[in-house]
């Protein structure tokens, strides 16, 4: 459900307008806002309102982004090396964290006694500001990609296990009982009843895990790494290089956007029967 769908009582263009008209009508307000903001930024730096040394300028950032695309190194590493490190940590960590989260969440959800016993600990774990655990994992795993992946796994796991647990525990007992009365085996009950019923909650947890995966990866790179987009941003900050910082940020945003699209595509495929 988009903000605009809720906010707009009527469409910007009449519903039977040609499709390209509707597209233009939807696209131009954000585009205008973007252009205006970039323009203000550029002009401010040109006229000295904002110091280019601290804030950089869209033109400079654009040049740096373009250069990096072609492979120009930033701090002795090409941007693609850094992107690869961060992307790999996020993908691998997300996968393992999600799998572990779903499996354990399922087991806990289906065994009400075990769930009741462990519930306070799960809640406590969810209450810990997860960023505080990053140095702990760095201490345990050392500096580098291993700690980063471990951080991602932990972050994603916590998010996913909580949602999966709620989803599975919240499946109506009537459904399960009905299936069993009709003679379903345990496996059938699990795969045909419980999992589909819990899927929205599970997907919600998977979706929520995405930002935390990146938070874990980037934070870990900030404090203990020698490569990756987070490391690059930290380096740029230390060298008072706002251009590099913004450029790295843009690459990060694109990476996150790609990842989010993938998760959304999976979600749409899996939850096809739900009206959105």
């Amino acid at each position, binding site marked *: 459900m988009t903000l605009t769908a809720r906010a707009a009582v009527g469409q910007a263009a009449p519903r039977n307008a040609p499709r390209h008209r509707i597209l233009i009508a939807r696209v131009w307000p954000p585009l205008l806002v973007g252009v205006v903001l970039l323009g203000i930024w550029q002009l401010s730096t040109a006229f000295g309102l904002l110091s280019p040394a601290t804030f950089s300028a869209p033109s400079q950032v654009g040049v740096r982004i373009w250069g990096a695309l072609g492979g120009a190194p930033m701090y002795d590493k090409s941007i693609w090396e850094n992107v690869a490190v961060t992307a790999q940590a996020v993908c691998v960590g997300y996968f393992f964290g999600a799998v572990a989260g779903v499996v354990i969440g399922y087991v806990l959800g289906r065994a009400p006694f075990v769930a009741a016993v462990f519930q306070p600990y799960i809640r406590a774990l969810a209450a810990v500001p997860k960023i505080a655990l990053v*140095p702990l994992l760095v201490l345990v795993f050392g500096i580098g990609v291993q700690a980063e992946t471990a951080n991602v796994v932990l972050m994603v796991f916590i998010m996913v296990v909580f949602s999966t647990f709620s989803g599975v*525990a919240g499946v109506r007992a009537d459904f399960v009982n009905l299936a069993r009365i009709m003679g379903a085996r345990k496996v059938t009950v699990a795969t045909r009843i419980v999992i589909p019923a819990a899927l929205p909650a599970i997907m919600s947890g998977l979706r*929520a895990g995405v*930002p*935390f995966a*990146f938070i874990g990866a980037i934070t870990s790179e900030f404090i203990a790494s020698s490569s990756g987009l987070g490391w690059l*941003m930290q380096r*740029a*900050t230390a060298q008072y290089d706002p251009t590099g910082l913004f450029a790295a940020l843009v690459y990060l945003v694109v990476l996150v956007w790609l990842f989010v699209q993938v998760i959304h595509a999976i979600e749409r495929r899996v939850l096809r029967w739900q009206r959105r």
Partner: protein
Amino acid sequence: MIVSRTPSRGRLLIPRRQVIVWACTFGVGVLFLFAWELASRAGTIDSVFYSKPTDIVVRLWQDMLGAEVYGRTIYEQIWITTDAVLIGYVAGAAGGVLVGFAVGRSKWLSRALEPYILTFYAIPKISIAPLFILILGIGLESKIAIVAMESFFILFMSTIRGVLEIDEQLVQIARIMGASRRTVLGRILLPASLPAIFSGLQLAVPFAVIGAVLGEYIASNRGLGWLVLYSGSSLDATGLFTAIVILVALTWLLAQIVSRSVVAMAPWLPRNQERRNDSEPQVGDRGPEVVR
């Protein structure tokens, strides 16, 4: 005897099953701590990296008595972090509510800003943190800015959601009855969006703390977040765990203060029993089912 099979009227009775559950929960906890302690003493896990529960308790006790760790008492560190959190939270929340209101009520602005809001929601806002460090330098200002940014965004999203859910009929009826724009704003719009705003206020607390901690990770030499990091890099696992415990307690305390203030200010609002403390509000996200 308070344990009974079925509750009967008049006295406080706890069903037997619940007691068994509590006993098991307690037992699991004790077992875990025991195993941790033993493994650490026996050398199965290296106590340099994992510490032991007794060490942590002792260190907590010493800290509370005012022992200086790395040159400052724990109370100084707590205050440094809390200071940044409080100022940033108030500033960011106020800004978020104001801007959220303006954007929520303006259809054009909502349409225009939507892609940016959604993108901003998806990226880890902590990646913007180095930018603040660059602009504002190492010091309290940059931490306040990071906290303010986190709080702003959360309150912004919550306020927009609250404003969008206001029933237009209420506004129209008020206008028909001749209410001025100010009356509509103060008597209809504000009270109707309060539940969402209050929910946002509560949600923002842990994120505000996270913002301050992150700011301290990357550019500080004081504060609880710095303490966590420095203990880790000094291979002081006990200090690390101690700092984490205190951080959790601080977050809990601040969250309690906020939620009790909210309840005190608006006792007629329904109280959220279960709320996910970890995820930021997403438009259309109804949150998880209540955990049994």
